[in-house]
């Protein structure tokens, strides 16, 4: 394999539109194949280019955004963990809880108990969104 060509502005724009689909429609039964298809990419090419641009695979990005939405709901919504798991687009409670714990460092139930005990943190959500949409090394 040779050195990959850097992504040009038109490719980056397409990848951004694909990323925006995940940011907007995370609650729908969306998977990487569907996002790749809507963005006009083959699955393989999409995963490779997305990772090159944003530093993580689209599947990981989508699940990270879903966990983050679940955190929002756990803070404020009067729903069970199972309901929230389904609402944010996970189909299995087991994989939701595992992924949640990996990302947040505690189970959804522990997170909710803690969030409702502590005081508010007025960090603008837009900055949380950008921060959460940024890069991760793990």
């Amino acid at each position: 394999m040779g050195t990959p060509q850097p992504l040009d502005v038109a490719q980056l724009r397409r990848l951004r539109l694909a990323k925006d689909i995940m940011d907007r429609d995370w609650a729908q039964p969306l998977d990487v194949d569907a996002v790749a298809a809507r963005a006009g990419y083959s699955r393989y090419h999409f995963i490779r280019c997305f990772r090159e641009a944003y530093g993580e695979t689209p599947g990981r990005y989508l699940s990270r955004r879903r966990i983050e939405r679940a955190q929002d709901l756990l803070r404020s919504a009067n729903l069970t963990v199972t309901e929230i798991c389904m609402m944010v687009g996970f189909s299995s409670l087991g994989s939701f809880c595992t992924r949640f714990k990996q990302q947040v460092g505690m189970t959804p139930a522990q997170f909710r108990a803690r969030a409702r005990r502590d005081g508010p943190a007025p960090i603008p959500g837009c900055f949380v969104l950008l921060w959460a949409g940024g890069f991760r090394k793990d």
Partner: protein
Amino acid sequence: MITGVGVTTVWVLDQDRAKEFFVGKLGMELRDDVTMGEGGMRWLTVGAKDQPDLMLTLMVPGPPAQDPESAEQLKALLAKGVLGAAVFTTTDCEGDYRELKERGVTFLQEPQRRPYGVEAIFRDDFGNWYSLTQRFAEPDESTAWN
């Protein structure tokens, strides 16, 4: 003594399309559209009707402000969608969300309740993201937000 912010730059990829977006879609006021000399810099600014002392200058990355390599890097960052350009304020986030969406503005987040207000997130046609925030008079402390 600094008395305020008067002009801030928003990087765009095309000034005609930027004018159409900010004036045509967002409904902002056109303040200046002047080209300095033949083929010279185009000074294109917009602002909110109720805020005469602040304007956004819509600039395309490139010389003489940047060398070609820096301009390309800036364009790539814009296209990737990682640059946030402004927080717009409104008295009716829900209403503006519906109206702007109707006009073809791309929203990443529908209006959501935050400690400081109701907030939606949208993008311009080039990749910059913006907040549209209706601030509460007092922070909402009814929910723990962290």
